[in-house]
C-alpha cells in the first residue's frame, strides 16, 4: 500500500527537463550552446538557474549583461511563481524538454519583479509561508517557530533537502482532529487566459453541513466555467503538480499533500488540448 508520505516525496521530487537557449538577439562572442537542466518543480527559476547564467555569461561580454530573465513562447516567466506552476500554466501540453529562452536585456519590468539576489526570493517565499499560516492557523504555528526553523524551511527548499524541509513543514500541516482541517485552505487559482493573475478567496476545508469540501467545490466557487457541464464536453484541465486530481479529492488532503513549499495550493486551469 502506498503511503501518503510517498506523495509528499513524489511531489517534492518532480522535475521538468528544460532546454535553455539564449535569445537570438543577445550579443555573444561565440555561439552559445543550449543548456539542459532538470528543474525542480517546487522551486523558483532564479533560485536554480545559476548554472544557466554562468553558462551563457561565458560567451558574452560583461557590458552586454544585465538582469537575467526567462521567456517561453513570448511570455515572460514570473520567477516568483513556482516552476511547476509556470510549466503547467504555459507549457503543459507541449513537448519535452521545455524550451526556455534566456534574456539578458530589455527586462520586462511591467511583467516581472526584479530579482537581484536570493534574499529577494527568500523574502518572497517566507511571506507566502506566513500568509498561508495566517489562513490555516491564524499565524499561530509560524509565529511559534524560531528563526532557525524559518531558515531551515528556506534552506531545505534551496538545497533540495526534502527531510530538512519537512522536519519543519509538518508542523505547518498540523491541525486538531476536532476541527477537521485548517481554518481556511491557502490556494491560488491561475488561468492563462484570464486578465487577473490569479484568484484567491477564503475557503474552508469543511462545509457548513460538516461535509468535507472537495476540489470540485472549490473550482465551482472560484471558476465555475472550468467544471464540465453534465454530459457536456470537458473544456478545461484543473492541474496541480502536472496531474489532474479527480475533482472529488478532498481539499484538506490536497492542502496537506499537494501544496507547494510555500504552503499554497497553486492550481492551474488551462484549456483542454484539442487533439
Amino acid at each position, binding site marked *: *500500500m*502506498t*503511503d*501518503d508520505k*510517498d*506523495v509528499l516525496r*513524489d*511531489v517534492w521530487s*518532480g*522535475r*521538468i*527537463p528544460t532546454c535553455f537557449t539564449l535569445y537570438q538577439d543577445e550579443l555573444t562572442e561565440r555561439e552559445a550552446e543550449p543548456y*539542459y*537542466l*532538470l*528543474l*525542480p518543480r517546487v*522551486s523558483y527559476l532564479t533560485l*536554480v*538557474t545559476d*548554472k544557466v547564467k554562468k553558462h551563457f555569461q561565458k560567451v558574452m561580454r560583461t557590458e552586454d549583461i544585465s538582469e537575467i530573465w526567462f521567456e517561453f513562447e513570448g511570455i515572460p516567466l514570473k520567477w516568483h511563481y513556482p516552476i511547476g506552476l509556470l510549466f503547467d500554466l504555459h507549457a503543459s501540453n507541449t513537448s*519535452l*524538454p521545455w524550451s526556455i529562452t534566456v534574456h539578458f536585456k530589455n527586462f520586462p519590468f511591467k511583467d516581472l519583479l526584479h530579482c537581484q539576489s536570493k534574499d529577494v526570493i527568500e523574502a518572497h517565499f517566507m511571506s507566502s509561508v506566513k500568509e498561508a499560516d495566517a489562513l490555516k492557523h491564524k499565524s499561530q504555528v509560524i509565529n511559534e517557530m524560531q528563526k532557525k526553523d524559518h531558515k531551515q524551511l528556506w534552506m531545505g527548499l*534551496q*538545497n*533540495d*533537502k526534502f*527531510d530538512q524541509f519537512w*522536519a519543519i513543514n509538518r508542523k505547518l500541516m498540523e491541525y486538531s*482532529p*476536532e*476541527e*477537521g482541517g485548517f481554518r481556511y485552505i491557502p490556494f491560488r487559482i491561475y488561468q492563462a487566459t484570464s486578465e487577473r493573475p490569479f484568484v484567491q478567496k477564503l475557503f*474552508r476545508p*469543511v462545509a*457548513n453541513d*460538516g*461535509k*468535507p469540501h472537495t476540489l470540485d467545490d472549490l473550482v465551482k466557487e472560484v471558476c465555475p466555467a472550468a467544471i464540465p457541464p453534465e454530459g457536456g464536453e470537458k473544456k478545461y484541465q484543473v492541474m496541480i*503538480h*502536472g*496531474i*489532474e*486530481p*479527480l475533482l*472529488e*479529492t*478532498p481539499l*484538506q*488532503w490536497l492542502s*496537506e499533500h499537494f501544496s507547494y513549499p510555500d504552503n499554497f495550493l497553486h492550481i492551474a486551469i488551462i484549456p483542454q488540448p484539442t487533439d
Partner: protein
Amino acid sequence: MPSTILWASDIWGKVYTLSTDGQQWELCKDGQLEFKRISAVQACCWGIASDHHIYIYVHASDLPIRYQEETYENQRWNPVDGFCERLLPSDRWQWSDVTGFNHQPLDSFTLPSPRWEWESDWYVDENIGGEPTEKGGWTYAIDFPATYLKDKKWNSCVRRRRWIRYRRYKSRNCWAKIPPHIDKDQLPDPFNDISVGGWEITDEPVGRLSVWTVSLQGKVWYRENVCHDNPEGSSWSEIETPSEVIQISCGPDDLLWAALWEGQAIVRKGISRNNPKGISWDVVEAPTPGEGIMHVSVGVHVVWAVTKERKVWFRRGINSHNPCGTSWIEMVGELAMISVGLNDQVWGIGYEDRGVYFRQGVTPSELSGKIWKAILVPRENDRSNSGSVSSINSAGCFFGEEVKGQTDSIIQSDVDSEAEQTQLQEFGPSVSDVKETGSQSAELPVDSHEEAASPSCDEVPTNSKMTRAPQWSSIDLVEARINALQPPDDANNLSVFETFPEGTEDSFGRDIYPLWTWVSGGSCLVDSHNSLKWFNLQAGLTTSMQSMSLSITPANTAMWRKQIFEQLSERTKRELDSFRHYEPAVDQSVWVKTGTLQWWRDWKPYKWIDVRVALEQVTANDGSKDSILFIYYTHYDEKKRTKQRWPVRLAATTEQRCMTGLLNRSCCEMRKVQGPPSHQAIWSTTCKGDYFGLLTDRYMWSDASGLQECTKTSMKPPSPQWSWVSDWYVDFNASGGTDRDGWQYAADFPSSYHGYKTIKDFVRRRRWARKCKIVTSGPWLEVPPIMLRDVSVFPGRITKDDEHIAVWAISNKGDVLCRLGVTKQTPSGSSWLHVGTDQPFISLSVGGCLQVWAIARDGSAFYRGSVSSSQPAGDCWYHIPSPPKQKLQQVSVGQTSVFAVDENGNLWFRHGVTPSYPQGSAWEHVSNNIRKVSIGPLDQIWVIADKVQGTHSLSCGTVCHRLGVQPMALKGQSWDYGIGGGWEHVTVRGNTGYQSVQSEPSSRTSMDASNDGKKKDPAPSTESEGPSGSAASS
C-alpha cells in the same frame, strides 16, 4: 485498532451498543428483555433486568468456552480376578477425584445450568505426563495413595485411570439468567446495582472477573469463581458493609467504591491477587456535608462521583497506595449517572436531557479530561433522528456560563460560526472551571437553556423534526416506568435514585430524542489514536462521513487517492524517465547532520554514555546515497571518533527521534531497502524492554542479570512509537515461581531462585513489569478479536490468487485454531475454526504438504492427521512423546523437516519423517543453547542461539544459520554464527528462494558492495540493534 463497544440502556430498558468506529446505536442482539442496570467488560456484559434477576450476555466468538470435568477410576488386584473394581474397605471409592477422598461416579456429573451442553461422552485420557500409555490409560502403584507409574510391575497392586468429559457454554450473544441460589434461606433480596471489573487483579484463572452487586436492602454481594470457562460464576457471598449501600463500582484493577444511603462513599481496602474480595472498608465523606453522594464510578486511577444535587465531582490523589484519594474537585455539568470505562475514559448521562455524554480529553496526564461532548448518533431503525439529535444539541446546552460566552462570540464574529457551533454541543472547558471543595465563591451554573438554544436552532434542519411519531409512543408510560425502574416489593423508597424526579413525565412525551438511563464504558477502549465519529450531527449515514477520515485505512482506498498515485507515477515516466541524464539544477553535495544520542559502550565499564554523532550523507552521481555515522566519545580523557565499521548500539530519547528516523532512512537508502520487503526477507524481533528484577546487592533496581541498573523511572518504551499502557506491577510469572507477594528467594546473588523461603536463603528478588504498546498506521492490520500466543503460516509458494493458505494459531488461552478463507487475495481470512485438544497448547507450526505439528503445555508434541485443502482442520491428533526427560516448548516444520526446542535449550530433529509415516520415529539431538528455531520452506534452519562467543563476552540472542543442509542431510553440519546479540525471534519461513520481481539484492551483498566502493573511513553500522526496533514486534 479493532473496534470496541459502549453499552447503554434507555428509559424503556432497551439495551443498545455503539461501536467506536460506528455511527449509530445498535439494538442489542437479544432485545427481548428490559434492563435497568448494565455493566460491561470486554468479554461479556452483566445486567439487572426488570425482573430484578441478574443476566449475563457473553459475546459470540470463534473460540468456544469449554470446561473439562474429570474423575478417576480406581482398581485393586487380587489373585482371583486380577485387577477389578473390588476394592478393600479401607480403599478409596471406585470412582473418585484425584485425591481419592471424594466419591465421583460418572453419572454424578450434571450440567451446572441449562446454559451448558456436553461436547461428547466420557472417555479415557491416555496421555500421562506427556507420554501416551496405549494401555487403556492405566497407571500403576503399590498402594493408594502413591506414585503412579505408566508400567505395571510385579508389585503393582492398584491402578487408576482418568476419565474426562468436556462441557460447552452455549448461550452466546444472548442474555442468560444467572440461576438463583438453591438454598432459599440465602436468597438475596432483589438486586439493585451491579458492577463488573477486577480483570487486572490477576490473570489466574484466565478471564477472572470481580462481579459485585447491591441488593435493595443495601447488602453487597460478591460472585464467586467468575472466569473465562465459568462465565456465570458459582455462588454469591455476602460482604459486610458499615451501612446500607445504594450503588457500587468496581474498577479494572483493585479500586472498588460504593455509595452509602447516608451519602458517604466507602472504599474497599486490601483487594489483591490473593484476596480479590478485599478486607475492610474505609469511609470517604461527601464533597459537601449537605450533598450526599448518589453515584460513584471508578477506573484504574480515577474516581468520579455524582451527588444528589446531580453535581459531578472528581476525586483527587487516587493511586494504588491511597485508594481513598485526597480531595474532591467539582466539575462542570449535571449528570444523572457516570461511568468510567477502559483507559479511565468517562461517560455520563446528562441529568436534564438524558443524553449520553463523553468526557473528551482524558489522558494519563490529565485524568479529569476537558469537556463533555454529547454523543449525537442516531439509533438503529430510528428514522426520526435527524430531528431528535438536533434537539439534544440544543437541550444539551444547559450549563450556562460557557454557552453564553459562545453565543456572544457568534454575534461578534461570523467568521468562526462553524467552530463555535460545534462547541455548543460541549459544556466548555472544565479545567479552568474546577473549584475546590469548600470554596463558596464560585457561582452555580445558570440555566440559560433558551438563550443557548436559539442560535443553534437556526442551523438545525427543522424539516424532519417531529414528522413521525416515535416508535415507542404507544407504550404505556406508567407501566413502563414501573417495569423498568421500580421494584415490585416494599422497597419503593430505595428506588428513588433510578427513577426520575416528578414532573419530568411531560418531557418524555414532548421530546422525541432517546432518553437514556444507564451507560457502561467497561468494554469501550478509547485513546488518543481513536477518531470517534460520535459527535457530528448528521442525517443518517452519509457517504461523506466516510471520506472525512483522511487517514489510510483499507476501507479508505478511495478512487481519488488511487488516481493521484497513478498520475504521479505517470508524471515521473513522462517528465523524468527519458531525461535522467540531464544535469540536476541543485547539486546534492555532502550533507552533515549532527545530534546527540546515547551509545552503549561495549567494554568496561559497560554503560550508556551521551555522545555527539554526525551523519554524513553523500549523493553519488548515479543518485544513490551513502552515509557514514561518526560517534564522538572520550576514552581515557582522549577525544575519539569511531573509525571502524562495527555494530553499535544506540538509544535515543523522545526528543532525539528526528535523528533515529534519519538513521533508519539512511540505512535503508544505503542498503537500497525500499518498497515492500523482499520475498526472501528473513524477519526477526528483538528482546528489548521485557523485564527486570530487583536485587539488593550492587543495584537496588536492576535488570535480570543484576549487572545493569534499571530504575522504574529510567525505563523507557523501546521507541517513541511505543507508549505505556499500564503502571508498574509485580510479575508473578517469573520462572522458578514466586511467593504470594511475588518474591523469589536464593542463597545469594546470582543464583537460582525459588518461590519459597528456606533457612538457607539470604536474598530475594521480585520482577516488576509494565506493559507498553505500539500503534502503527500500517502495514500491519489487526485480526480481531482473539488474542494469540503463536501463529504459523504455510511456508510454501502460493501461485494462485484464490488458493487456500493454511494458517494455524494458538490463542492466549491455549486453544488451537485454524484460520479459514485465507488466500493471497484475502490474507486475513474469514474466521477461526476451533480445533479441540485435551490440554492447552503452546506452540504450533504448519509445514510443507500441510503437516501440522504442535506442542502441548505438558511438553509433548502432537501431529495433526489428515489435514488437506478439503479438510483444513484435519481429523485427529497423534500424540508424539517428547525426548526423554525433556519438555518441548517450540516446534517448526519446513518442507519436510521437523525441529523442536525444549525448555533447556536443546534443539531436536525429528528422525524418520516420511510421506507415508509423517509422525517420524525418534527425536535426535542437534545442538544446545538454542532459544528459538525457524525452518524455512527449503528446510533452511535458522535459530536464535544463546551463549555464543562474541568479541567481548558471551552474547545472548544471536541469529545463527545452519550450514550443510542437504536433501539427504536435513540436520545440517555446523552453525554459521551471525548478527550479534539481542534478538528474540527470527523467521525464515517467508524465504521460498524464488526471486520476486521487485526484490532488491539482500542486505548483505549491498553492504559488501558499498564497502568495496568506498575509500573513506568505514562507518559503524547501525543496523544491528537500534532501539527504534521494528514494527514486526507488535
